[in-house]
């Protein structure tokens, strides 16, 4: 009985008692959600365009951020560094297409997945060789990102909104909007989906896989750069940031691997769900449930919709 009360009543009472905390929790959830979505987005782009589950997305985030910071440290002006970092991601996209993807065209998904793991390994080694393993600070000021906090007094408490988080949300939304339009309204967008469906058939109708892949890997690289800036500003730029990419997995799965809106909504659901869960129910079992809660949430949704919220329907026909 006591347990039931603690699980089903108390947390809600508490929500009512301290609405400021509830709102703060929701806000934190939304912010994390946006940040997760940013990483998930990179995955989605590549998955959409090639059916490749890109394990290297996490390291690409780190890599992009490190290039940016590294160049800045060498005295390159911040915005030039930003452009150069983008160029570096383009180069990466071209190299990856040449060296990894082209020879593996039409191979099963899992093989390509494995190849991106090889890529991850390579990039970790390469990155640490160049930049060293020490964490860096993101050049938040130089990039003119707002910092500071607004404290709103409300509901008998206060709600703290970080300007950086607000900026992240805005930038992420703009970027997502642009990508969504680009990929749904253009001929490239259609070709992308075709490639993801079948490499062989796409080749046969003259879709240039090489070109498509470079485009999406570059787009994913840009997304990685943005994600790197935002995450970096929040928790520093280091190779361990790569692990955060794992957080994108439940988001992806919940949203559906192929859907840009799915990545966003999935991110928000996971972000909010996990923060609420940890905040209100975590203490009952000693905390730290955040690590698996996201997966359980995703799993529950999947049992209901096996292709995720916005994923492409799994075609079962014989």
């Amino acid at each position, binding site marked *: 009985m006591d347990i039931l009360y603690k699980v089903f009543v108390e947390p809600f009472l508490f929500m009512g008692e*301290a609405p400021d905390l509830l709102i*703060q929790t929701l806000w*934190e959830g939304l912010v994390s959600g946006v940040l997760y979505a940013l990483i998930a987005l990179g995955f989605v782009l590549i998955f959409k365009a090639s059916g490749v589950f890109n394990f290297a997305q996490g390291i690409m985030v780190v890599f992009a951020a490190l290039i940016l910071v590294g160049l800045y440290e060498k005295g390159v002006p911040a915005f030039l560094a930003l452009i150069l970092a983008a160029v570096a991601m383009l180069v990466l996209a071209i190299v990856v297409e040449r060296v990894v993807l082209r020879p593996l065209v039409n191979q099963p998904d899992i093989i390509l997945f494995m190849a991106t793991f090889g890529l991850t390994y390579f990039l970790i080694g390469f990155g640490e060789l160049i930049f*060293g393993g020490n964490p860096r600070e993101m050049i938040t000021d130089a990039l003119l990102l707002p910092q500071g906090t607004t404290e709103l007094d409300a509901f008998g408490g206060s709600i703290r909104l970080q300007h950086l988080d607000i900026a992240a949300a805005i930038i992420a939304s703009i970027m997502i909007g642009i990508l969504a339009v680009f990929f749904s309204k253009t001929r490239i967008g259609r070709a992308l989906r075709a490639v993801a469906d079948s490499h062989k058939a796409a080749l046969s109708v003259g879709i240039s896989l090489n070109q498509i892949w470079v485009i999406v890997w570059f787009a994913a690289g840009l997304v990685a750069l943005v994600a790197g800036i935002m*995450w970096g500003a929040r*928790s520093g730029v280091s190779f361990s940031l790569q692990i*955060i990419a794992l957080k994108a997995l439940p988001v992806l799965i919940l949203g559906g691997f192929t859907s840009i809106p799915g990545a966003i909504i999935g991110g928000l659901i996971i972000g909010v769900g996990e923060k609420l869960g*940890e905040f209100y129910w*975590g203490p009952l079992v000693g905390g730290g449930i*955040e690590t698996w809660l996201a997966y359980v949430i995703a799993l529950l949704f999947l049992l209901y919709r096996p292709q995720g919220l916005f994923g492409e329907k799994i075609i079962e026909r014989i």
Partner: protein
Amino acid sequence: QDSIYVPLFTYRTGAFAGSGTYIADGMHDYLQMLNQRDGGIGGVKLVIEECETGYDTKKGVECYEAVKGKNPVMVNPWSTGITLPLIPRASVDKIPILSMAYGLSASARGDIFPWVFNPPATYWDGLSMIIKYIGEKEGGLEKLKGKKIGFIHLDAAFGKEPIPLLQELSKEIGFEVALYPVAAQDMQNQSSQWLSARRDRPDYMIMWGWGTMNGAAVKEAVRSGYPMDKFYSVWWPSEDDAKSGGAGAKGFKMLNWHAVGTNFPALQDIQKHVVEKGLSKSPKEKVGELLYNRGVYNSLLIAEGIAQAQKITGKKAVTGEDVRRGIENIKLDPARLKELGLEGFTETLTLSCSDHNGHRPAFMQEWDGTKWVKISDPIEPMTDRVKAQLDAAAKDYAEKNAGWPKRTEACDKAS
């Protein structure tokens, strides 16, 4: 050609490289300095070899196996996670383990763990010092009654190590404890923990972190508006970690037991013989920083252990077994420190057969926005409260590990 093989387990890669690199540089450079300046210890050259563990238990054990056959005089795992599986092997392989101020607190008991050393203080000592310090600030330990203390820790053996003591103290003294575990994969994603801290409003926060966790925690604390002067840490954060909090990090406090800076002859020798000759991997400006000097301290113990062993045995090329005796005979008093060019670098440390730790005091230091400032006298650990627990834990460990050997190694001095 005599030589002494000193393997160093280090991590300059992986998620903990941000902390590990400085430590590695400090450890390496001090030993290298001895080689360059004195031709080693007692005229025997040191063969210094790093083995990269990435703070990963698997690779750590691999490193252990790799060095085991080369007659190492001791191993320095630099990870509580790696230390644990090595503890039972040490006595079998006759290789002393030096887990300096980390590892298993209970291994301070030399009579039960003859091969393991964790000077100058255990994690439990550390925790008791922090509690004591904040107790004094409140005007007496008993004033902590009814207060709430938050404990944010890496969710791993290391971070959980002091929890039993914390809980014990909370019972005795009557303060409340709120635990905030941070999973290794979420080190850079701590918003939930700090959000919960806003809910629980702990009067104090104590942190047991490592690697990127420390910096991220400082950032998040600032972000969520936690009063920094109530935020304490065990002795592992670095300057970089504090810096990542920006101006808001001012007031953040941590324990420490040795000096920062290069104002010591030995450190200047390092600069002269190692750094300037390009034999160090460390950037010049990092020499003398907190974790660098921590590494130096670790190597100081290694060197002393070897020197003592040479003294006791009269041998030059000492073995692991000799060095085990050597460490038990370490006596770093001001005179000796001066001799070594480290006068005032740290407190006196005396180890013995039964006491492998020393349980030495540490002092509190505060981040002033640009550097660490010592703000307290040495704080003695609450030995009275810690000791019984420690003994019980050591006994428990020996009992649970059926067949745990009784100490057979003789003692060199009565204690």
